[in-house]
């Protein structure tokens, strides 16, 4: 593979220091506040508590998918997971059918979904490590398999319904006025921050992401780590699928597709470059909120679909300029 040849050993280029202002999390937060102000100016009530809560619920769904995506990308070697969308859809269907509208089935549904997500994630990881298939290709192929599987399942069984308790958890206030899913997301954020900053596992992710060979030489079980990262990505996508079922009440065709590339963009907006080895999840959370607010503003503004898409695409490009760009050849 080209991992060894493309990995540059050039020293980090000296950068203009504007203090914390240049940290991706701060950039994202400033943009979030600016967009909220813009939204409020365009349509009064946009930045009201209820609206922000609604945005956060949508952002939590994206953010949970992005957690797994983040881990895979941090692990480097062109790590990326294109199959998350398929896992989200599959998990929503599995959950809907296992619980089928009954609160008693929630635990069983969670178990089934997490197992499903872990299974597909582990397959990805094994293909990437044992067979050394590039992650993009492996997860792209897996996405095709998942989409085919969805067609089969959809023919055979009804789409299933969310249990009332699950819908309550996702949409109704649970504690301190915040729905359960937001607490879940905060918890995931805290656990991710702790794992990445304070545990051996976390440090090893950065190690294999920044220099796989050196990490291997230092005794890091690189393959096991990578399989674990892909498995976790599947698990996070599965959890998001369950929550999505709770959010929409019933699952419908390919609900997860909308998360595939946005989950990658959220990671990039959060300051984790696709090359891996740097960044973290706190930024990704901000990135997810940023993306969701941007989309929401565009739906508030009274322009037709074509204009909305053009503005969205152009804004994404402009925002990307704020984040780490590739190095120049001259450096």
């Amino acid at each position, binding site marked *: 593979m080209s991992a060894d040849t493309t990995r540059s050993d050039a020293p980090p280029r000296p950068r203009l220091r504007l203090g914390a202002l240049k940290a991706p999390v701060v950039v994202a937060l400033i943009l979030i506040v600016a967009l909220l102000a813009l939204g409020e100016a365009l349509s009064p009530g946009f930045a009201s508590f209820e609206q922000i809560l609604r945005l956060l619920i949508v952002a939590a769904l994206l953010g949970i998918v992005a957690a797994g995506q983040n881990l895979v990308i941090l692990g480097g070697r062109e790590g990326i997971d294109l199959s998350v969308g398929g896992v989200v859809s599959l998990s929503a269907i599995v959950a809907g059918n296992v619980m089928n509208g009954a609160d008693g089935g929630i635990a069983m549904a969670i178990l089934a979904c997490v197992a499903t997500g872990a299974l597909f994630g582990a397959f990805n990881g094994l293909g990437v490590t044992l*067979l050394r298939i590039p992650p993009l290709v492996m997860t792209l192929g897996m996405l095709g398999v998942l989409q085919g599987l969805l067609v089969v399942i959809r023919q055979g069984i009804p789409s299933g319904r969310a249990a009332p308790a699950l819908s309550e958890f996702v949409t109704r206030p649970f504690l301190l006025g915040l729905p359960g899913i937001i607490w879940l997301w905060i918890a995931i954020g805290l656990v991710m921050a702790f794992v990445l900053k304070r545990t051996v596992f976390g440090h090893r992710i950065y190690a294999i992401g920044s220099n796989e060979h050196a990490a291997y030489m230092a005794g890091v079980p690189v393959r096991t780590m990578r399989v674990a990262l892909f498995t976790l990505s599947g698990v996070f996508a599965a959890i998001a699928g369950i929550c999505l079922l709770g959010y929409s009440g019933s699952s419908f065709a390919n609900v997860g597709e909308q998360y595939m590339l946005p989950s990658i963009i959220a990671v990039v907006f959060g300051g984790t470059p696709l090359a891996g080895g740097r960044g973290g999840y706190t930024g990704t959370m901000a990135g997810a909120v940023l993306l969701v607010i941007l989309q929401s503003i565009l739906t508030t503004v009274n322009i037709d679909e*074509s204009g909305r898409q053009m503005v969205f695409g152009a804004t*994404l490009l402009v925002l990307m300029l704020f984040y780490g760009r590739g190095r120049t050849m001259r450096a």
Partner: protein
Amino acid sequence: MASVSSPVHGAAPGRLKRLFERYPFLPALVILVVLLALNGVFAPNSLSFRALTGLLSTYLALMLLSVAQAYVVFASDIDLSVGAIASLVNVTIIVVMQQLGGGVPSVLLALAVGLAVGLACGLANGIVVAALRLQPIVATFATSIFFTGLALYVLPVAGTPAPAVFWRTYGGRLLGVPFVVYLALGLALVLYLLARSRLATQLLAVGDDAQAAYQSGLPVTLIRIKGYALCGLFAALAAFCITGDTASGDPLVGGKMTLLSVAAVVLGGCALSGGFGTAIGAVLGALIIGLINSLVFFVGTPSEWQNLVQGLAILVALMVGIMVSRRARA
């Protein structure tokens, strides 16, 4: 046109390796022949001239889109907007032809406009990725959203028909031979010429080691922009075939083909990390996808299982292809 020939070790395995270095699409060719044979076993009719040209007219668009993808993959870039470019060109030429009355001159003008639109989109991608140094995957995803918006602006809903002269020509015959056969021969000639061009070699050199290419004096940024421009042109050609095949405009028609084009490029023996591959391999990869789809149909797979079996077969083909080409190169 494999990029760098590394020193050959050993005698007997060395020959196979050299052969593979020279023709990276060999594994794809083997898979293709096997699939053709299997198709012939399960449905002898599927190997008839008529059936094969039918396959060609359906998959010519994907073949061209995969070629488009291949040229950016050469330079270790990727273009997730090829499908959106094809959609935009599709609706653009449909609207131009409709506005100008649908005669032969309007068709020719529409094709010229279509190529210009494809080129412009490709240049935009190239500038965003190579000059502004954004990461290709996310940047071309963003441009794909923009192009889709443009396509929706040009033609908000699918359905405007193409003038009869357009699709009759595409689906018709010239001197008793289906028109698509001429197109395929034309494509083969263009690919042959491009394979011998300086640009193809430069793209592979950049993909193999951008820093080395830069230090030996190649204008890396310009070369990558040219790669994206070429990609945009081929995406426009793919759009012409889509239009000929579907005979109507659809602002979202190409979206699903983007990831298939990436799969086809990999199936054809190109390394996603750049620096190794051929455009003809991408064509073979697209044909492999087409043959897998028809084989799944011919063996009598129940309709609801077809997508799953296709997905599994493509995944297996991707894995086998990558493992074989790595073994042959190692």
